[in-house]
């Protein structure tokens, strides 16, 4: 509404004046009639414009821009800080994982060593026992071995004495037969009994 009145007043003014002004010739700019008025109003309006802009409006715009800039800067810095924090946390997490991994490895190693030691110990004792058993068995074999020769000699003596009795029909002296058998067994012992 105000706009309408404003423009109407301007337009009517123009229509009104152009009827009268149409007669003047040449450039109206060079007509000094309103020069002083123009200078006065220019100084007034431009002066007021300059003072209001420089004292009130431009500092506000400048402050607004600065504030926004600093806010953006702050936000960027905060984001940067958060990012750094998260990186630190990530590193901590990584190191924790590494630590626990190495710990787990150590535990595993220890357990393995213990088990191996146990196994070795058991193996050794078992070996010892086995050795002992073997030695015992060998000893018994040895005893049997040595015993076997005498028994064989005895049997040989008895059989040979009985053979002689059957053949000759008379008792032969026991001791002479055993001496011959012993002698023979000593001569050819290697042949019959091995070592």
């Amino acid at each position, binding site marked *: 509404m105000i706009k309408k009145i404003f423009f109407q007043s301007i337009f009517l003014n123009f229509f009104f004046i152009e009827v009268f002004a149409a007669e003047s010739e040449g*450039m109206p700019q060079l007509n000094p009639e309103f*020069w002083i008025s123009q200078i006065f109003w220019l100084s007034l309006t431009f002066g007021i*414009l300059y003072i209001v802009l420089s004292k009130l409006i*431009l500092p506000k*715009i400048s402050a*607004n821009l600065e504030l926004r800039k600093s806010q953006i800067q702050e936000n960027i810095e905060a984001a940067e800080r958060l990012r750094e924090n998260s990186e630190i946390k990530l590193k901590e997490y990584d190191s924790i994982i590494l630590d626990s991994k190495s710990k787990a490895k150590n535990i595993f190693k220890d357990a393995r060593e213990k088990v191996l030691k146990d196994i070795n110990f058991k193996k050794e004792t078992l070996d010892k026992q086995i050795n002992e058993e073997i030695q015992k068995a060998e000893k018994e074999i040895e005893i049997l071995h040595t015993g076997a020769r005498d028994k064989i000699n005895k049997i040989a003596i008895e059989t040979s004495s009985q053979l002689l009795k059957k053949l000759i029909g008379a008792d032969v002296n026991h001791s002479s037969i055993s001496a011959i058998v012993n002698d023979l067994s000593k001569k050819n012992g290697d042949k019959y009994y091995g070592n």
Partner: protein
Amino acid sequence: MAANPMTQFEVYRIGPEIKIGAFDISFTNASLFMVVSSLAILIIFNLGSKKNYMFPNKIQLLAELSFTFVSKMINDTAGSKAKPYFSFIFSLFMFVLFCNMFGMIPYTFTVTSHIIVTFVLASFIFIGVTIIGFIKHGFGYLKLFVPSGVPIVLLPLIVVIEIISYLSRPISLSVRLFANMMAGHTMMKVFGGFVVSLGIVGGWLPLSFSVALTGLEILVAFLQAYVFAILTCIYLNDALNLHH
């Protein structure tokens, strides 16, 4: 409508005649559009700076983009030493831009199409820059007229040329803006007159020209404001950073 394309530049009184001594300072249509432009700037930038949203709304974005645009322009041409003059150049750029742009609305008055307005602005800049130069460098500022690396024989000629070019700065600055605005608006008025006089049969060609010219003029309105501001920055740069 009046056939004379220059009548759009007529200044006339709105309301009663106001006099201070011998001077007539009546409120005119030129004054009206100065006030309108200034008010528009103040309203837009006030709305744009009222609240600081993390994600700016449209008007805030407009204000902040203008701010950074002018700030970058000053920093690029005049360096960081020109920071104290930022408000002035910003006001200057916005004032010229808004006056030019308001002039593009049909039936309005273009403040910057008057030589007296642009000349007052340009001479204010010229005097201000000269004073700044002398304050910063003392009489060393006169070295501006003696470029380094010039043969002694040519020196008197060069100095004269430099002085003339320096003194013609306010004239070139003011005439550039004034002539651009006046020529553009006159052209548009002339083509508009053709549309009316050729009627419905032949009026389409000048009409299309008129449409194209409107686009061009909006571009020129922005460009001239930019040129005005950037030349101010360059002059300021000469005064702040003496290169010669």
